[in-house]
């Protein structure tokens, strides 16, 4: 896989991004009529309103407005928050690390538990681990993510106060950080007590996000491993004298990962989207919460900014999933 492949795929994603921008523009500028109506107060005179309209380019025809909007985006100008009176891009980038750390923790949690469960189900086939993995993944997938988040809060925070039910970090501790990547910073600067504090806050939201992904990975990996075990190369691995564990890990697993990534890749993208809901339930100060507050206050520039960032992340993540097939499967890599 070469850099040109990556570049080509990035270029292919451009029309999608253009469509995203167009939809945000239509939703936020055209449908509600006029963003100015949300800015003005009772005391504004018609003159004030006209001045604001000119200042925002709203007296221009719609296609012209779209062009102006695109030009502003290209300059990195996402506008100014109506309620916070700050540059939207700055606000969004300040919140992005919290969401990324949450999504990444959930991803790591989901892939490790899902893979271990899938491997265990196959290694001890027809014994209790397989039945346990099958049962647990069925339950995990039957219950919607929203209810999982509530169940976790009620069980592990309210009923049994093991974890904090909300927030990212104790506000007193938060002043100790220099960057917004709290968890990363605490790990890099070797401050385990801070990392533990952050992880105790992350545990429940990350778990709520991880449950469906882990269940899907466990199920698909199990099926794919069983399929791989039926292939001749597993027989050859056996007659080479490899132990069942070595044959499973070195020969079946690399093959089984290909279908697993195909199926779970979609779910990884959904996990990133799921942060919006989970952040709301756990009052986690990331992009999702910022979006919610902006929606309540009808702070349109912030809504635009968060939506753009999420869409770009989605497009990039989809790209990463696509490219990871090629990393896993030499037959695709050289095609």
């Amino acid at each position, binding site marked *: 896989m070469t850099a040109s492949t990556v570049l080509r795929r990035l270029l292919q994603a451009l029309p999608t991004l253009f469509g995203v921008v167009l939809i945000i523009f239509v939703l936020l500028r055209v449908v509600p009529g006029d963003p100015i109506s949300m800015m003005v107060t009772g005391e504004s005179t018609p003159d004030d309103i006209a001045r604001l309209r000119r200042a925002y380019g709203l007296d221009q025809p719609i296609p012209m407005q779209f062009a102006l909007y695109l030009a502003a985006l290209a300059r990195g100008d996402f506008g100014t928050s109506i309620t916070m009176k700050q540059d939207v891009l700055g606000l969004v980038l300040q919140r992005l690390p919290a969401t990324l750390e949450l999504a990444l923790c959930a991803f790591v949690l989901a892939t490790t538990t899902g893979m271990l469960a899938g491997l265990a189900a196959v290694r001890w086939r027809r014994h209790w681990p397989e039945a346990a993995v099958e049962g647990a993944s069925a339950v995990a997938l039957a219950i919607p993510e929203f209810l999982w988040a509530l169940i976790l809060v009620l069980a592990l925070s309210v009923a049994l106060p093991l974890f904090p039910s909300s927030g990212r970090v104790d506000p007193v501790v938060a002043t100790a950080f220099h960057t917004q990547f709290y968890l990363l910073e605490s790990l890099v600067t070797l401050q385990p007590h801070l990392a533990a504090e952050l992880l105790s806050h992350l545990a429940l939201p990350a778990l709520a996000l991880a449950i469906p992904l882990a269940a899907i990975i466990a199920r698909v990996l199990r099926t794919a491993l069983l399929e791989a075990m039926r292939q001749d190369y597993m027989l050859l691995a056996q007659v080479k004298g490899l132990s069942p564990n070595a044959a499973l890990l070195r020969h079946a697993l690399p093959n089984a990962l290909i279908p697993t990534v195909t199926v779970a890749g979609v779910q990884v993208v959904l996990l990133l989207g799921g942060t919006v809901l989970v952040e709301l339930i756990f009052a986690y100060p990331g992009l999702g919460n910022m979006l919610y507050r902006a929606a309540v206050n009808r702070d349109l520039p912030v809504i635009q900014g968060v939506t753009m960032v999420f869409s770009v992340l*989605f497009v990039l993540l989809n790209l990463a999933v696509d490219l990871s097939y090629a990393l896993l499967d030499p037959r695709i890599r050289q095609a």
Partner: protein
Amino acid sequence: MRPRWNLPLLLGGGGVAVLLLVGLLAPWLAPHDPMEQDLLAQNLPPFWSAARDPAYLLGTDSLGRDLLSRLIWGVRPALLVMLAGTSLSGGVGMLLGLVAGYLGGWADALVSRTVEVFMSFPPMLLAIVLAAVIGPGLNTVILAVALIGWTRFARVMRAETLKLREQDFVLAARLMAVGGGRILFGEILPNLTPIALALLSLEMGRAIVVEAVLAFIGFSSSDIPTWGGVVADGRDTFNQAWWVITSGMACILASVLLLNLLGDGLRRATQRGDE
């Protein structure tokens, strides 16, 4: 194709029918006005507890409202959103998918690209943006369900139509110069009914969850009782009245499971005998 009855179909179908009945008969079934507050009867426990009040079968919430009545009335918005939302998303999504799959070419490219763009938004984000733009309310929730769900219908229908288009009976119809519309609706659509039904019931389950979530975060109508609202009310008073949030969650979970069961049953009932 004769439908075959099976246990999931009976359980799921029966459960959904009961849900529909409860929704229709809510005014007669509910023992109390769901909005009526009785500040002398706050956080009363359900019937199995010693401290119960026989007037309130499932107890009351922190404002002294009858929980059972709120849950019964909560069936209505859930069903309304489910039916209206999936009709919209299913109607639009399936039509676009069919057209894209059957016509191919630029129509397919246009639909596929649009689906791709819509799938670049996290579903909850779409719902929240919509609520911000047109304000909270049931209409917002229904539109949100439609906006989130139509891409799945379009994608599945497109793929299935594409598969069917190349099959012998469709080719035969084309050779006999049967019109495009008649092929699409006469030959292709009947073959897609099983998968469409299963997809619809799955999406109905999702619609119930979306409704609950939006009510939970306060983006649904605040004038009517909703399950999501019951969950939101009960969350802060879990330690005094655990039955409020758990009963709300149980209603959401039960209806989602029933719809999934129905979808599973429909899939089995309409599958070809050889599968």
